[in-house]
C-alpha cells in the first residue's frame, strides 16, 4: 500500500513501490488527462507537478514521490495562474491534436509560478523538454506570454 496526495486528496493505493506514478494516475486513480508518450522521460507528455515542480511521471516511482503533493492537469484550473494559462490556450487556439498539451500546460504553469514574466530564453529553458509533434511551439510561446500579462 502506498499513500499518495493527488490533487489535495490523500488515498492509499494498492500498487508496488516501484510502479511509475503515471501508471497509478492513469490506470489506478483513473486520472487520464496525463498522457503516456515515450515512457523514458523524453517527450514531456506525462508531466505533472510534484510539490509545484514539473516532474516526468513516467519515470518517477511512487516511492520516490513519498508524501509530496502531486498535481495533475485535472486540477490545474484551481488557481489564478492555471486559469490564466487555460484561458490563453483557448484564446490563442494553441491545441492541434492535443496529445502533448497536458504536459505543455503543466510545464508552462510551473514556469510562470517561478517567473511571472519569462523571457524567450526562460521559455526555452522550461519548455524544451516538451515535444509537440504537431509543431504548435509558436502558439505555445505566444500563449505563455499572453498568460504572463494577466
Amino acid at each position, binding site marked *: 500500500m502506498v499513500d499518495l496526495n493527488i490533487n489535495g486528496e490523500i488515498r492509499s493505493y494498492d500498487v508496488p513501490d516501484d510502479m511509475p506514478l503515471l501508471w497509478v494516475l492513469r490506470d489506478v486513480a483513473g486520472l487520464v488527462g496525463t498522457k503516456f508518450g515515450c515512457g523514458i522521460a523524453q517527450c514531456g507528455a506525462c*508531466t505533472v507537478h510534484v510539490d509545484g515542480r*514539473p516532474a516526468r511521471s513516467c519515470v*518517477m516511482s511512487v516511492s520516490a514521490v513519498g508524501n509530496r503533493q502531486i498535481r495533475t492537469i485535472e486540477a490545474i484550473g484551481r488557481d489564478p495562474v492555471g486559469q490564466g494559462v487555460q484561458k490563453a490556450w483557448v484564446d490563442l487556439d494553441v491545441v492541434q491534436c492535443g496529445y502533448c498539451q497536458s504536459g505543455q500546460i503543466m510545464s508552462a504553469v510551473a514556469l510562470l509560478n517561478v*517567473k511571472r514574466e519569462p523571457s524567450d530564453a526562460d521559455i526555452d*529553458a522550461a519548455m*524544451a523538454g516538451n515535444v509537440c509533434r504537431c509543431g504548435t511551439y509558436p502558439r505555445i510561446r505566444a500563449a505563455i506570454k499572453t498568460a504572463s500579462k494577466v
Partner: protein
Amino acid sequence: MRRLGLTILAIVVVLAAAAAAFFFWPHGLTDVAEARSRLPTGADSVKRGEYLAKAADCAACHSVGSSRPYAGGLPFHLPFGTIYATNITPDRDTGIGQWSDAEFVRAMHHGVGRDGRDLYPAFPYASYALMSTEDALAIKDYLFSLTPVHAEAPPHQLKLPYDQSYLLRAWKLLFVPRQQFNPDPGQSTAQNRGAYLVEALGHCGECHTPRNKLYGLDSGQKFAGAVTAGWKAYNITSDATAGIGAWSDQALADYLSKGFAQGHGAASGSMAEAVEYSLSHLTPEDIKAMVAYLRTVPGHPAPHELAVAPSPRSLNDSTHLTPAPAENDQESLGLEVFQGACASCHGFDGTGVNDPRAALAGSQTVNDPTGVNLLQVLLQGSRFRTDHVEAAMPSFHAYRDVELAAVANYVLAHFGAKSAQISPDQVARARRGQ
C-alpha cells in the same frame, strides 16, 4: 678460450630451451572434481551461477546490446588492435558447449582457452583468478543452462607482436594472482565478502585502477581512477576529496544499486552498464558488504582541480528554471545552448527538474575540467534501466563542435565552479572516438 666459448654456448642453449618451455610448453589442467562434488547439482547450482554471473558482469562484455545475451561479438578497441568477445552460450561449435569443467576453470583462473592458447586479458582473468573454483563451476552450470546460440566471434585484429598470444605468459607471470581469494582474518565478515565481490567478481579495478606501462594494474594506485575505453572511471578510494570518503553509506549503496545518489548525480556510460547488468541485481547485503570493503581501500589524493565543488554560488543564485541573474546578463553561447537543450530536465540549481536522476549538483562528471565523461554523455546520451523504469538522456551529437564545447564549459563553470577550456577540437576528437 674454447672452454669459455662452449660454456657461453651451453648457457645460451639452456636459456633458449627454458624460454621455449616457458612460452610453448602446453598448459596443464587441474583436477576440479573435488570442488564439483561440493557443489549442489541441477537447478540449485544454475541459480547460484546466475547470481554469480551477474555479480561478475559477464553479460556486459559477452553480449552486443541486449540482443542475444552471452553470444559474444562485442569489439574492444585497444591501443594494440581490436579483439572480440567470444560466444559463451553452450553452442557446441561456436560457444563453450564442449568445454570440460577443468577447461572452464583454467580459463577463469589462468586465461587459457580450450585449445590451450593464452587469452587476452580484456577477459579479466587477472581478477577472476581470485574466484573460488566452486563459484567458477556454478557460473559454468548457469551458462550451460542457456539456449545455445550459433554465433562465430570475428577473429581478433592485433598488430605484431601483440598477436603472438604466447607472449602473454610473461604478462601473466607478473599480473595474475596465483591464489584464490583468501579472507583476511583481520577484517569483518562483511568486509571480506565485499572484498570478494569487488575484487574477484565485480573486477572493479579493471577500470578504476590505472594501468602501468605493461598494461598491468598499477597496484600502488589501487582504485585511484583511470580512463578506459573513452570513459573515466573515477577515484573510488577512501580519500575524502578525490574519492568516496565523504559519501554516506546510503549514498554509496544507492549509487551502486540504483545508478544514482542524492547529491552525487547519476552514473553513465560503462558504470551505468555495470549497474544495469550487474550491481542492480545484487542483494542489499552484498551491496552493503561492497560498501564496507570500499571504505578500507586506502585514500589516494588527486589534484585539487578535480575535487567536487561543495556548493557553487552559481547554483545557490539560480532557481530550478532560471539561471543566476549575473549569468543572464552575459552573452554566452554555452548558456544559450543549455537553456534550449538541457535546462528543461537538468534545471539550473542542480536539483534536477523532471527527474531526480537529472540532478547535476555534486556529480563528478560536471566537476571534472578534463570533460572526458561530460563529452561522452553529450555525444552519446545516457540511459538508465531497471525492470520497471527506463529513463534516457538523448544524444546531442547533432550539435556543432563549437556548441558542445561551449555548453560543456558552461556546465563545468556553473555546476562545478571550474574554469575549463574544452575546445571544439577536443569535441571533434571525442566524436571520432579518440
